[in-house]
Protein backbone atom coordinates (compact mmCIF):
# COMPACT_ATOMS: atom_id res chain seq x y z
CA UNK A 1 0.00 0.00 0.00
CA UNK A 2 1.35 3.44 -0.90
CA UNK A 3 1.35 6.12 1.73
CA UNK A 4 -1.26 8.81 1.91
CA UNK A 5 1.46 11.43 2.02
CA UNK A 6 5.20 11.08 1.70
CA UNK A 7 7.50 14.07 1.99
CA UNK A 8 11.26 14.20 1.81
CA UNK A 9 13.12 17.37 2.65
CA UNK A 10 10.05 19.31 1.60
CA UNK A 11 10.69 23.04 1.76
CA UNK A 12 8.61 26.03 0.75
CA UNK A 13 9.89 29.58 0.78
CA UNK A 14 8.06 32.77 -0.11
CA UNK A 15 10.86 35.12 -1.03
CA UNK A 16 13.05 35.12 2.05
CA UNK A 17 10.41 33.79 4.41
CA UNK A 18 10.49 30.05 5.02
CA UNK A 19 7.01 28.63 5.47
CA UNK A 20 8.02 25.01 5.66
CA UNK A 21 11.54 23.75 6.24
CA UNK A 22 12.97 20.36 5.43
CA UNK A 23 9.81 18.42 6.19
CA UNK A 24 10.12 14.65 6.08
CA UNK A 25 6.99 12.58 6.68
CA UNK A 26 5.52 9.22 5.79
CA UNK A 27 1.83 9.13 6.58
CA UNK A 28 0.24 5.74 5.88
CA UNK A 29 -3.16 5.58 4.22
CA UNK A 30 -6.36 4.87 6.11
CA UNK A 31 -5.83 7.33 8.91
CA UNK A 32 -7.50 10.47 10.08
CA UNK A 33 -4.44 12.63 10.53
CA UNK A 34 -4.37 15.68 12.72
CA UNK A 35 -1.98 18.41 11.69
CA UNK A 36 -1.50 20.58 14.71
CA UNK A 37 0.60 23.60 15.48
CA UNK A 38 0.36 27.27 16.31
CA UNK A 39 -0.82 29.78 13.71
CA UNK A 40 1.79 30.41 11.05
CA UNK A 41 3.59 27.14 11.69
CA UNK A 42 3.24 26.04 8.07
CA UNK A 43 0.10 23.88 8.31
CA UNK A 44 -1.65 25.61 5.42
CA UNK A 45 1.51 25.52 3.35
CA UNK A 46 1.91 21.78 3.84
CA UNK A 47 -1.72 21.13 2.90
CA UNK A 48 -1.57 23.38 -0.15
CA UNK A 49 1.61 21.60 -1.25
CA UNK A 50 -0.21 18.31 -0.77
CA UNK A 51 -3.12 19.32 -3.01
CA UNK A 52 -0.88 20.85 -5.66
CA UNK A 53 -1.96 24.45 -5.18
CA UNK A 54 1.64 25.26 -4.32
CA UNK A 55 4.85 23.89 -5.74
CA UNK A 56 7.71 23.05 -3.39
CA UNK A 57 10.84 25.21 -3.38
CA UNK A 58 12.91 22.13 -2.63
CA UNK A 59 12.37 18.51 -1.73
CA UNK A 60 9.79 15.99 -2.83
CA UNK A 61 6.16 15.36 -2.01
CA UNK A 62 4.06 12.40 -3.04
CA UNK A 63 0.36 12.00 -2.37
CA UNK A 64 -1.27 8.59 -2.88
CA UNK A 65 1.81 7.55 -4.81
CA UNK A 66 1.94 10.46 -7.24
CA UNK A 67 3.22 14.00 -7.37
CA UNK A 68 0.23 16.19 -6.49
CA UNK A 69 -1.19 18.51 -9.13
CA UNK A 70 -4.23 20.72 -8.74
CA UNK A 71 -7.11 19.22 -10.62
CA UNK A 72 -6.30 15.73 -9.43
CA UNK A 73 -9.37 13.50 -9.10
CA UNK A 74 -8.00 11.68 -6.07
CA UNK A 75 -7.38 14.62 -3.75
CA UNK A 76 -10.18 16.54 -2.09
CA UNK A 77 -9.39 19.85 -0.46
CA UNK A 78 -11.39 22.08 1.85
CA UNK A 79 -9.45 25.32 2.10
CA UNK A 80 -9.17 27.55 5.13
CA UNK A 81 -12.28 29.70 5.74
CA UNK A 82 -14.11 27.22 3.47
CA UNK A 83 -14.43 29.45 0.39
CA UNK A 84 -17.66 29.16 -1.61
CA UNK A 85 -19.18 31.29 -4.36
CA UNK A 86 -21.38 33.78 -2.50
CA UNK A 87 -23.59 34.48 -5.47
CA UNK A 88 -24.30 30.85 -6.25
CA UNK A 89 -26.86 28.67 -4.50
CA UNK A 90 -26.16 25.47 -2.64
CA UNK A 91 -27.62 23.51 -5.56
CA UNK A 92 -25.37 25.44 -7.97
CA UNK A 93 -22.35 24.28 -6.00
CA UNK A 94 -23.43 20.69 -6.42
CA UNK A 95 -23.92 21.25 -10.16
CA UNK A 96 -20.46 22.81 -10.26
CA UNK A 97 -19.05 19.70 -8.64
CA UNK A 98 -21.00 17.46 -11.02
CA UNK A 99 -19.76 19.40 -14.06
CA UNK A 100 -16.13 19.50 -12.99
CA UNK A 101 -15.60 16.03 -11.49
CA UNK A 102 -16.01 12.86 -13.53
CA UNK A 103 -16.07 10.84 -10.30
CA UNK A 104 -18.85 12.96 -8.76
CA UNK A 105 -21.41 11.10 -6.64
CA UNK A 106 -24.51 13.23 -6.95
CA UNK A 107 -26.76 11.00 -4.87
CA UNK A 108 -24.28 11.20 -2.02
CA UNK A 109 -24.01 14.98 -2.33
CA UNK A 110 -27.77 15.49 -2.28
CA UNK A 111 -28.18 13.09 0.62
CA UNK A 112 -25.56 14.93 2.63
CA UNK A 113 -27.09 18.32 1.89
CA UNK A 114 -30.48 17.02 3.03
CA UNK A 115 -28.90 15.47 6.12
CA UNK A 116 -27.21 18.69 7.16
CA UNK A 117 -30.46 20.58 6.70
CA UNK A 118 -29.18 22.95 4.01
CA UNK A 119 -31.69 24.56 1.67
CA UNK A 120 -30.54 23.87 -1.91
CA UNK A 121 -32.04 27.17 -3.09
CA UNK A 122 -30.13 29.21 -0.51
CA UNK A 123 -27.37 31.52 -1.76
CA UNK A 124 -24.04 30.29 -0.41
CA UNK A 125 -23.12 33.84 0.63
CA UNK A 126 -25.93 33.81 3.19
CA UNK A 127 -24.99 30.54 4.87
CA UNK A 128 -23.64 30.52 8.40
CA UNK A 129 -20.02 29.50 8.94
CA UNK A 130 -21.07 26.00 9.93
CA UNK A 131 -23.37 25.56 6.94
CA UNK A 132 -20.69 26.87 4.61
CA UNK A 133 -18.20 24.39 6.03
CA UNK A 134 -20.73 21.56 5.53
CA UNK A 135 -21.25 22.66 1.93
CA UNK A 136 -17.50 22.82 1.25
CA UNK A 137 -17.04 19.38 2.83
CA UNK A 138 -19.87 17.97 0.71
CA UNK A 139 -18.35 19.34 -2.50
CA UNK A 140 -14.92 17.95 -1.56
CA UNK A 141 -16.27 14.58 -0.42
CA UNK A 142 -18.70 13.93 -3.27
CA UNK A 143 -15.86 13.75 -5.74
CA UNK A 144 -14.88 10.59 -3.87
CA UNK A 145 -11.24 11.42 -3.23
CA UNK A 146 -8.75 8.94 -1.87
CA UNK A 147 -7.36 11.62 0.39
CA UNK A 148 -9.29 14.50 1.88
CA UNK A 149 -7.31 17.53 3.02
CA UNK A 150 -8.98 19.98 5.37
CA UNK A 151 -7.36 23.26 6.35
CA UNK A 152 -8.67 24.52 9.70
CA UNK A 153 -12.22 23.54 8.78
CA UNK A 154 -13.66 24.08 12.24
CA UNK A 155 -11.58 27.03 13.46
CA UNK A 156 -14.31 29.61 12.85
CA UNK A 157 -17.23 27.47 13.99
CA UNK A 158 -19.14 27.52 17.26
CA UNK A 159 -18.96 24.30 19.32
CA UNK A 160 -22.27 22.96 18.04
CA UNK A 161 -21.45 23.55 14.38
CA UNK A 162 -18.00 22.11 15.03
CA UNK A 163 -19.45 18.93 16.42
CA UNK A 164 -21.87 18.71 13.51
CA UNK A 165 -19.05 19.10 11.02
CA UNK A 166 -16.86 16.48 12.69
CA UNK A 167 -19.78 14.04 12.90
CA UNK A 168 -20.34 14.39 9.17
CA UNK A 169 -16.65 14.03 8.45
CA UNK A 170 -16.29 10.92 10.61
CA UNK A 171 -19.37 9.32 9.07
CA UNK A 172 -17.89 9.91 5.63
CA UNK A 173 -14.57 8.40 6.70
CA UNK A 174 -16.25 5.36 8.27
CA UNK A 175 -18.26 4.78 5.10
CA UNK A 176 -15.48 5.19 2.54
CA UNK A 177 -12.24 4.51 4.36
CA UNK A 178 -10.92 7.77 2.91
CA UNK A 179 -7.67 9.04 4.40
CA UNK A 180 -8.04 12.47 5.95
CA UNK A 181 -5.45 15.07 6.86
CA UNK A 182 -6.93 17.88 8.86
CA UNK A 183 -5.17 20.84 10.35
CA UNK A 184 -6.33 22.58 13.48
CA UNK A 185 -5.04 24.36 16.49
CA UNK A 186 -7.82 22.92 18.62
CA UNK A 187 -6.20 19.83 20.08
CA UNK A 188 -9.33 18.74 21.93
CA UNK A 189 -11.14 18.19 18.62
CA UNK A 190 -8.22 16.36 17.08
CA UNK A 191 -7.95 14.10 20.11
CA UNK A 192 -11.41 12.76 19.37
CA UNK A 193 -11.22 12.31 15.66
CA UNK A 194 -7.59 11.65 14.82
CA UNK A 195 -5.60 8.46 15.11
CA UNK A 196 -2.42 9.95 13.70
CA UNK A 197 -0.86 13.24 14.66
CA UNK A 198 1.69 15.59 13.13
CA UNK A 199 2.97 18.45 15.26
CA UNK A 200 4.32 21.32 13.22
CA UNK A 201 6.04 24.19 15.02
CA UNK A 202 8.03 27.02 13.47
CA UNK A 203 7.84 25.51 9.97
CA UNK A 204 9.36 22.22 11.20
CA UNK A 205 7.85 18.82 11.96
CA UNK A 206 8.42 18.17 15.68
CA UNK A 207 6.78 14.79 15.93
CA UNK A 208 4.56 12.57 13.83
CA UNK A 209 3.02 9.22 14.61
CA UNK A 210 -0.02 7.19 15.54
CA UNK A 211 -1.88 8.66 18.48
CA UNK A 212 -1.73 5.43 20.49
CA UNK A 213 2.04 5.25 20.00
CA UNK A 214 2.44 8.86 21.01
CA UNK A 215 0.36 8.33 24.14
CA UNK A 216 2.29 5.24 25.19
CA UNK A 217 5.75 6.61 24.46
CA UNK A 218 5.48 10.00 26.16
CA UNK A 219 5.89 10.40 29.89
CA UNK A 220 6.12 13.17 32.40
CA UNK A 221 9.01 12.70 34.82
CA UNK A 222 9.13 14.63 38.08
CA UNK A 223 11.90 14.38 40.63
CA UNK A 224 14.56 16.22 42.61
CA UNK A 225 16.38 18.87 40.62
CA UNK A 226 19.23 17.70 38.45
CA UNK A 227 21.20 19.68 35.95
CA UNK A 228 22.32 18.66 33.40
CA UNK A 229 19.53 16.22 32.80
CA UNK A 230 20.49 12.76 31.63
CA UNK A 231 17.45 10.52 31.71
CA UNK A 232 19.28 7.69 30.02
CA UNK A 233 19.91 6.44 26.51
CA UNK A 234 16.97 6.18 24.11
CA UNK A 235 15.09 8.83 26.01
CA UNK A 236 14.46 12.07 24.18
CA UNK A 237 13.66 15.10 26.28
CA UNK A 238 10.80 17.08 24.73
CA UNK A 239 10.40 19.73 27.36
CA UNK A 240 12.09 20.45 30.65
CA UNK A 241 11.46 22.90 33.43
CA UNK A 242 13.30 23.38 36.70
CA UNK A 243 12.61 25.02 40.02
CA UNK A 244 15.40 25.26 42.59
CA UNK A 245 14.30 21.93 44.05
CA UNK A 246 12.54 20.05 41.31
CA UNK A 247 12.98 19.08 37.69
CA UNK A 248 10.01 18.23 35.50
CA UNK A 249 10.53 16.63 32.11
CA UNK A 250 8.37 15.54 29.24
CA UNK A 251 10.20 12.73 27.50
CA UNK A 252 9.69 10.40 24.61
CA UNK A 253 10.86 6.88 25.16
CA UNK A 254 9.75 3.53 23.86
CA UNK A 255 11.48 1.73 26.69
CA UNK A 256 10.05 2.03 30.21
CA UNK A 257 11.72 4.55 32.53
CA UNK A 258 13.40 2.46 35.25
CA UNK A 259 15.15 5.20 37.24
CA UNK A 260 13.32 5.00 40.61
CA UNK A 261 14.09 8.62 41.52
CA UNK A 262 11.66 9.83 38.84
CA UNK A 263 7.96 9.85 39.41
CA UNK A 264 6.56 8.74 36.04
CA UNK A 265 3.12 9.90 34.88
CA UNK A 266 1.15 9.35 31.70
CA UNK A 267 0.32 12.29 29.49
CA UNK A 268 -2.79 13.23 27.56
CA UNK A 269 -2.52 14.13 23.90
CA UNK A 270 -3.01 17.80 24.60
CA UNK A 271 -0.13 17.80 27.09
CA UNK A 272 2.13 16.10 24.58
CA UNK A 273 1.25 18.61 21.87
CA UNK A 274 1.73 21.53 24.24
CA UNK A 275 5.10 20.16 25.30
CA UNK A 276 6.25 20.16 21.69
CA UNK A 277 4.79 23.58 21.05
CA UNK A 278 6.17 25.29 24.12
CA UNK A 279 9.21 27.49 23.89
CA UNK A 280 11.70 25.18 25.57
CA UNK A 281 11.44 22.63 22.76
CA UNK A 282 12.14 25.29 20.19
CA UNK A 283 14.90 26.75 22.36
CA UNK A 284 16.70 23.43 22.44
CA UNK A 285 16.83 23.33 18.67
CA UNK A 286 18.13 26.84 18.54
CA UNK A 287 20.93 25.90 20.91
CA UNK A 288 21.77 22.87 18.81
CA UNK A 289 21.85 24.93 15.66
CA UNK A 290 24.11 27.44 17.38
CA UNK A 291 26.62 24.75 18.23
CA UNK A 292 26.79 23.37 14.70
Amino acid at each position, binding site marked *: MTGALIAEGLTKRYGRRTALADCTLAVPAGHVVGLVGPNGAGKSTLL*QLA*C*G*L*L*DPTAGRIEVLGAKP*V*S*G*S*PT*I*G*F*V*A*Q*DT*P*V*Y*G*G*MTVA*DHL*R*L*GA*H*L*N*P*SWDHAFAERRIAQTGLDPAQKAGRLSGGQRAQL*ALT*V*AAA*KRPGLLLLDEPVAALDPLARRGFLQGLMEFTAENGTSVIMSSHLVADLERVCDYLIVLVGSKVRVAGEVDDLLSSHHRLAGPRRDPVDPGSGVHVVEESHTDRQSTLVVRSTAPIDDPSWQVDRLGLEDIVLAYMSGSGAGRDRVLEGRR
Partner: protein
Amino acid sequence: MIWLTWRQYRTPALSTGGLLLLFLLALAATWTRITDLARSTGLTGCSGTACDRAATTFLQELDTGPVGPVYVTVAVALLLLPALFGTFWGAPLVARELETGTYRLIFSQTVSRGRWLLVKLLVGGASAAFGAGLVALLLTRWAAPIDTARGDRISPLTFAVHGVVPIGYAALAFVIGVTAGLLLRRIVPAMAVTLLLVAAVQVAMPLLVRPVLATSVTSITALDAAHPSRMSFDTGSGAVHVTGPAAMPNAWILENTTITADGAEFAGPAPSDVCGPESGGPEKCQEWLAAQNLRQKVVSVPGAQFWALQWRELGLLLAAAVALALCCLWRIRRKLA
Protein backbone atom coordinates in the same frame (compact mmCIF):
# COMPACT_ATOMS: atom_id res chain seq x y z
CA MET B 1 -16.71 24.25 -17.31
CA ILE B 2 -18.71 26.22 -19.88
CA TRP B 3 -21.76 25.89 -17.65
CA LEU B 4 -19.78 27.32 -14.72
CA THR B 5 -18.47 30.21 -16.81
CA TRP B 6 -22.01 31.02 -17.89
CA ARG B 7 -23.38 30.65 -14.34
CA GLN B 8 -20.71 32.97 -12.93
CA TYR B 9 -20.86 35.65 -15.58
CA ARG B 10 -24.45 35.62 -16.75
CA THR B 11 -25.24 38.88 -14.94
CA PRO B 12 -22.51 41.01 -16.57
CA ALA B 13 -22.99 39.12 -19.85
CA LEU B 14 -26.73 39.76 -19.92
CA SER B 15 -26.43 43.41 -18.91
CA THR B 16 -23.76 44.11 -21.54
CA GLY B 17 -25.78 42.11 -24.05
CA GLY B 18 -28.85 44.19 -23.22
CA LEU B 19 -26.92 47.39 -23.73
CA LEU B 20 -25.60 46.24 -27.10
CA LEU B 21 -29.08 45.13 -28.11
CA LEU B 22 -30.31 48.63 -27.32
CA PHE B 23 -27.74 50.06 -29.74
CA LEU B 24 -28.67 47.54 -32.42
CA LEU B 25 -32.34 48.45 -32.02
CA ALA B 26 -31.51 52.16 -32.31
CA LEU B 27 -29.60 51.46 -35.53
CA ALA B 28 -32.42 49.30 -36.90
CA ALA B 29 -35.06 51.87 -36.02
CA THR B 30 -33.27 54.65 -37.90
CA TRP B 31 -32.15 52.51 -40.83
CA THR B 32 -34.90 53.54 -43.26
CA ARG B 33 -34.59 57.15 -42.20
CA ILE B 34 -30.91 57.38 -43.08
CA THR B 35 -31.33 55.62 -46.45
CA ASP B 36 -34.34 57.81 -47.29
CA LEU B 37 -32.36 60.88 -46.35
CA ALA B 38 -29.47 59.80 -48.56
CA ARG B 39 -31.84 59.26 -51.46
CA SER B 40 -33.85 62.46 -51.03
CA THR B 41 -30.75 64.64 -50.77
CA GLY B 42 -29.37 62.98 -53.90
CA LEU B 43 -26.36 61.46 -52.12
CA THR B 44 -27.21 57.98 -53.30
CA GLY B 45 -25.85 57.41 -56.78
CA CYS B 46 -24.49 60.94 -57.23
CA SER B 47 -21.45 61.76 -59.31
CA GLY B 48 -18.95 64.57 -59.62
CA THR B 49 -19.56 67.96 -58.02
CA ALA B 50 -23.21 67.10 -57.41
CA CYS B 51 -21.95 64.84 -54.67
CA ASP B 52 -20.40 67.70 -52.75
CA ARG B 53 -23.65 69.65 -52.75
CA ALA B 54 -25.68 66.56 -51.86
CA ALA B 55 -23.26 65.77 -49.05
CA THR B 56 -23.63 69.25 -47.57
CA THR B 57 -27.42 69.13 -47.54
CA PHE B 58 -27.36 65.54 -46.26
CA LEU B 59 -25.16 66.50 -43.33
CA GLN B 60 -27.34 69.53 -42.56
CA GLU B 61 -30.50 67.38 -42.60
CA LEU B 62 -28.73 64.82 -40.42
CA ASP B 63 -28.46 67.19 -37.47
CA THR B 64 -32.20 67.87 -37.37
CA GLY B 65 -33.37 64.24 -36.95
CA PRO B 66 -32.52 61.46 -34.50
CA VAL B 67 -29.92 59.98 -36.85
CA GLY B 68 -27.11 62.35 -35.79
CA PRO B 69 -27.43 61.65 -32.04
CA VAL B 70 -27.79 57.90 -32.66
CA TYR B 71 -24.56 57.95 -34.67
CA VAL B 72 -22.65 59.85 -31.98
CA THR B 73 -24.03 57.67 -29.18
CA VAL B 74 -23.24 54.34 -30.83
CA ALA B 75 -19.81 55.54 -31.98
CA VAL B 76 -18.87 56.78 -28.50
CA ALA B 77 -20.24 53.55 -26.99
CA LEU B 78 -18.06 51.53 -29.35
CA LEU B 79 -15.05 53.59 -28.32
CA LEU B 80 -15.79 52.90 -24.64
CA LEU B 81 -16.79 49.26 -25.12
CA PRO B 82 -13.22 47.84 -24.90
CA ALA B 83 -12.73 49.59 -21.56
CA LEU B 84 -16.01 48.06 -20.37
CA PHE B 85 -14.96 44.56 -21.43
CA GLY B 86 -11.54 44.98 -19.88
CA THR B 87 -12.59 46.41 -16.52
CA PHE B 88 -15.89 44.65 -15.88
CA TRP B 89 -15.41 41.34 -17.68
CA GLY B 90 -11.68 40.73 -17.80
CA ALA B 91 -10.26 42.23 -14.61
CA PRO B 92 -12.55 40.45 -12.11
CA LEU B 93 -12.32 37.11 -13.94
CA VAL B 94 -9.26 35.81 -12.11
CA ALA B 95 -8.87 38.60 -9.54
CA ARG B 96 -12.22 37.79 -7.90
CA GLU B 97 -11.22 34.15 -7.47
CA LEU B 98 -7.86 35.15 -6.02
CA GLU B 99 -9.28 37.90 -3.80
CA THR B 100 -12.12 35.87 -2.31
CA GLY B 101 -10.07 32.67 -2.12
CA THR B 102 -12.51 30.67 -4.24
CA TYR B 103 -9.62 29.64 -6.49
CA ARG B 104 -8.82 27.13 -3.77
CA LEU B 105 -12.30 25.66 -4.20
CA ILE B 106 -12.22 25.53 -7.97
CA PHE B 107 -8.69 24.18 -8.29
CA SER B 108 -9.48 21.28 -5.99
CA GLN B 109 -12.08 20.08 -8.49
CA THR B 110 -10.99 17.74 -11.25
CA VAL B 111 -10.07 20.52 -13.66
CA SER B 112 -6.57 21.73 -14.46
CA ARG B 113 -5.78 25.39 -13.94
CA GLY B 114 -4.80 25.76 -17.58
CA ARG B 115 -8.08 24.35 -18.87
CA TRP B 116 -10.08 26.44 -16.42
CA LEU B 117 -8.47 29.66 -17.58
CA LEU B 118 -8.49 28.64 -21.24
CA VAL B 119 -12.25 28.10 -21.24
CA LYS B 120 -12.84 31.39 -19.46
CA LEU B 121 -10.55 33.24 -21.86
CA LEU B 122 -12.16 31.67 -24.91
CA VAL B 123 -15.75 32.15 -23.79
CA GLY B 124 -15.19 35.68 -22.46
CA GLY B 125 -12.94 36.82 -25.30
CA ALA B 126 -15.17 35.38 -28.01
CA SER B 127 -18.30 36.92 -26.47
CA ALA B 128 -16.63 40.32 -26.17
CA ALA B 129 -15.35 40.11 -29.73
CA PHE B 130 -18.72 38.96 -31.03
CA GLY B 131 -20.65 41.73 -29.27
CA ALA B 132 -18.31 44.49 -30.37
CA GLY B 133 -18.01 43.08 -33.89
CA LEU B 134 -21.76 42.82 -34.38
CA VAL B 135 -22.39 46.43 -33.38
CA ALA B 136 -19.38 47.70 -35.34
CA LEU B 137 -20.24 45.92 -38.58
CA LEU B 138 -23.86 47.05 -38.40
CA LEU B 139 -22.76 50.58 -37.67
CA THR B 140 -20.40 50.45 -40.67
CA ARG B 141 -23.28 49.48 -42.97
CA TRP B 142 -25.71 51.90 -41.35
CA ALA B 143 -23.31 54.84 -41.43
CA ALA B 144 -22.13 54.30 -45.01
CA PRO B 145 -23.95 57.43 -46.32
CA ILE B 146 -22.55 59.53 -43.46
CA ASP B 147 -19.04 58.28 -44.20
CA THR B 148 -19.49 59.06 -47.89
CA ALA B 149 -20.74 62.53 -47.10
CA ARG B 150 -18.03 63.29 -44.60
CA GLY B 151 -15.26 61.43 -46.35
CA ASP B 152 -13.60 60.73 -42.99
CA ARG B 153 -13.90 56.96 -42.77
CA ILE B 154 -10.15 56.58 -42.34
CA SER B 155 -9.64 59.38 -39.81
CA PRO B 156 -8.53 57.98 -36.45
CA LEU B 157 -11.73 58.30 -34.41
CA THR B 158 -14.04 57.01 -37.13
CA PHE B 159 -11.63 54.24 -38.08
CA ALA B 160 -11.67 52.83 -34.56
CA VAL B 161 -15.46 52.32 -34.51
CA HIS B 162 -15.84 50.99 -38.05
CA GLY B 163 -15.19 47.70 -39.74
CA VAL B 164 -13.47 44.87 -37.92
CA VAL B 165 -10.98 46.59 -35.60
CA PRO B 166 -13.53 46.91 -32.71
CA ILE B 167 -13.38 43.09 -32.54
CA GLY B 168 -9.64 43.30 -31.92
CA TYR B 169 -9.93 46.08 -29.37
CA ALA B 170 -12.63 44.21 -27.45
CA ALA B 171 -10.67 40.96 -27.37
CA LEU B 172 -7.40 42.63 -26.44
CA ALA B 173 -9.01 44.75 -23.72
CA PHE B 174 -10.61 41.63 -22.23
CA VAL B 175 -7.30 39.79 -22.12
CA ILE B 176 -5.55 42.86 -20.69
CA GLY B 177 -8.14 42.82 -17.90
CA VAL B 178 -7.58 39.12 -17.22
CA THR B 179 -3.80 39.61 -17.15
CA ALA B 180 -4.02 42.56 -14.78
CA GLY B 181 -6.30 40.56 -12.49
CA LEU B 182 -3.95 37.59 -12.51
CA LEU B 183 -0.91 39.69 -11.69
CA LEU B 184 -2.44 42.16 -9.21
CA ARG B 185 -4.77 39.64 -7.52
CA ARG B 186 -7.14 42.43 -6.40
CA ILE B 187 -10.27 43.44 -8.27
CA VAL B 188 -10.23 47.23 -7.89
CA PRO B 189 -6.54 47.83 -8.68
CA ALA B 190 -6.84 45.42 -11.60
CA MET B 191 -9.83 47.37 -12.94
CA ALA B 192 -8.00 50.70 -12.60
CA VAL B 193 -4.86 49.42 -14.31
CA THR B 194 -6.93 47.83 -17.06
CA LEU B 195 -8.76 51.09 -17.70
CA LEU B 196 -5.45 52.94 -18.04
CA LEU B 197 -3.87 50.31 -20.28
CA VAL B 198 -6.88 50.03 -22.58
CA ALA B 199 -7.00 53.81 -22.95
CA ALA B 200 -3.26 53.82 -23.62
CA VAL B 201 -3.68 51.20 -26.37
CA GLN B 202 -6.52 53.17 -27.94
CA VAL B 203 -4.39 56.33 -27.98
CA ALA B 204 -1.15 54.65 -29.03
CA MET B 205 -2.65 52.79 -31.98
CA PRO B 206 -3.51 55.83 -34.16
CA LEU B 207 -0.52 57.87 -32.94
CA LEU B 208 2.26 55.32 -33.18
CA VAL B 209 1.21 52.02 -34.69
CA ARG B 210 -1.34 52.68 -37.43
CA PRO B 211 0.98 55.02 -39.44
CA VAL B 212 3.50 52.17 -39.55
CA LEU B 213 0.86 49.67 -40.69
CA ALA B 214 -0.39 51.96 -43.45
CA THR B 215 1.35 52.74 -46.72
CA SER B 216 1.45 56.52 -46.69
CA VAL B 217 1.57 58.66 -49.80
CA THR B 218 3.67 61.84 -49.95
CA SER B 219 2.64 64.60 -52.29
CA ILE B 220 4.59 67.82 -52.88
CA THR B 221 2.78 70.68 -54.56
CA ALA B 222 3.32 74.41 -54.85
CA LEU B 223 2.09 76.16 -51.72
CA ASP B 224 -1.18 77.99 -52.21
CA ALA B 225 -0.17 80.90 -49.98
CA ALA B 226 -3.42 82.73 -50.67
CA HIS B 227 -5.49 80.15 -48.76
CA PRO B 228 -3.41 78.99 -45.81
CA SER B 229 -5.12 76.86 -43.17
CA ARG B 230 -2.84 78.33 -40.49
CA MET B 231 -0.33 81.17 -40.32
CA SER B 232 1.74 82.58 -37.47
CA PHE B 233 4.46 85.19 -37.03
CA ASP B 234 6.87 85.57 -34.13
CA THR B 235 7.65 89.25 -33.59
CA GLY B 236 10.83 88.49 -31.68
CA SER B 237 12.68 86.22 -34.10
CA GLY B 238 10.72 87.06 -37.20
CA ALA B 239 9.98 83.37 -37.74
CA VAL B 240 6.91 82.73 -39.81
CA HIS B 241 4.99 79.46 -39.97
CA VAL B 242 2.47 78.74 -42.63
CA THR B 243 0.42 75.62 -43.34
CA GLY B 244 -1.21 75.14 -46.69
CA PRO B 245 -4.86 74.16 -47.21
CA ALA B 246 -5.58 70.55 -46.31
CA ALA B 247 -8.36 69.69 -48.67
CA MET B 248 -7.91 65.97 -49.13
CA PRO B 249 -11.21 64.14 -48.79
CA ASN B 250 -11.18 60.44 -47.89
CA ALA B 251 -7.62 60.59 -46.66
CA TRP B 252 -5.97 60.49 -43.29
CA ILE B 253 -3.43 63.30 -43.19
CA LEU B 254 -0.40 62.33 -41.16
CA GLU B 255 1.76 65.34 -41.89
CA ASN B 256 1.22 68.72 -43.56
CA THR B 257 4.31 70.90 -43.72
CA THR B 258 5.66 73.73 -45.80
CA ILE B 259 9.09 73.22 -47.26
CA THR B 260 11.52 75.32 -49.22
CA ALA B 261 12.84 74.43 -52.66
CA ASP B 262 15.71 72.43 -51.17
CA GLY B 263 13.36 70.37 -49.00
CA ALA B 264 14.05 71.97 -45.61
CA GLU B 265 11.14 72.92 -43.41
CA PHE B 266 10.27 76.59 -43.91
CA ALA B 267 10.29 78.85 -40.85
CA GLY B 268 11.02 82.34 -42.18
CA PRO B 269 12.31 84.70 -41.15
CA ALA B 270 10.08 87.31 -42.72
CA PRO B 271 10.63 91.04 -42.52
CA SER B 272 8.58 92.50 -39.70
CA ASP B 273 6.96 95.23 -41.85
CA VAL B 274 5.60 92.56 -44.22
CA CYS B 275 4.27 89.90 -41.83
CA GLY B 276 4.40 91.75 -38.49
CA PRO B 277 1.53 93.47 -36.73
CA GLU B 278 2.26 96.81 -38.47
CA SER B 279 1.68 95.32 -41.94
CA GLY B 280 -2.05 95.96 -41.56
CA GLY B 281 -3.41 92.55 -42.56
CA PRO B 282 -2.27 89.17 -43.83
CA GLU B 283 -2.41 90.09 -47.55
CA LYS B 284 1.10 91.58 -47.72
CA CYS B 285 2.57 88.58 -45.92
CA GLN B 286 0.72 86.16 -48.20
CA GLU B 287 2.09 87.96 -51.23
CA TRP B 288 5.58 87.76 -49.74
CA LEU B 289 5.14 84.05 -49.01
CA ALA B 290 3.92 83.38 -52.54
CA ALA B 291 7.16 84.89 -53.83
CA GLN B 292 9.32 82.57 -51.72
CA ASN B 293 8.86 79.56 -54.05
CA LEU B 294 7.50 77.36 -51.23
CA ARG B 295 6.04 73.90 -51.50
CA GLN B 296 3.45 72.06 -49.50
CA LYS B 297 4.36 68.56 -48.40
CA VAL B 298 1.45 66.32 -47.40
CA VAL B 299 1.92 62.80 -46.08
CA SER B 300 -1.40 60.98 -46.07
CA VAL B 301 -3.06 57.60 -46.09
CA PRO B 302 -5.64 57.38 -48.86
CA GLY B 303 -9.12 56.19 -47.98
CA ALA B 304 -8.79 53.29 -50.39
CA GLN B 305 -6.53 51.59 -47.87
CA PHE B 306 -9.38 51.47 -45.33
CA TRP B 307 -10.08 47.74 -45.43
CA ALA B 308 -6.46 46.67 -45.84
CA LEU B 309 -5.57 48.75 -42.82
CA GLN B 310 -8.57 47.41 -40.88
CA TRP B 311 -7.47 43.81 -41.39
CA ARG B 312 -3.84 44.56 -40.59
CA GLU B 313 -4.77 46.33 -37.38
CA LEU B 314 -7.20 43.56 -36.41
CA GLY B 315 -4.45 41.01 -36.98
CA LEU B 316 -2.05 42.92 -34.80
CA LEU B 317 -4.60 43.37 -32.00
CA LEU B 318 -5.63 39.72 -32.06
CA ALA B 319 -1.99 38.61 -32.12
CA ALA B 320 -1.34 40.76 -29.05
CA ALA B 321 -4.42 39.30 -27.33
CA VAL B 322 -3.37 35.73 -28.08
CA ALA B 323 0.20 36.39 -26.90
CA LEU B 324 -1.07 37.89 -23.66
CA ALA B 325 -3.50 35.00 -23.18
CA LEU B 326 -0.65 32.52 -23.60
CA CYS B 327 1.32 34.41 -20.94
CA CYS B 328 -1.67 34.12 -18.60
CA LEU B 329 -1.96 30.38 -19.24
CA TRP B 330 1.74 29.89 -18.65
CA ARG B 331 1.62 31.94 -15.48
CA ILE B 332 -1.41 30.25 -13.93
CA ARG B 333 0.09 26.83 -14.50
CA ARG B 334 3.32 27.81 -12.85
CA LYS B 335 2.40 30.04 -10.00
CA LEU B 336 -0.65 30.94 -8.00
CA ALA B 337 0.18 31.91 -4.48
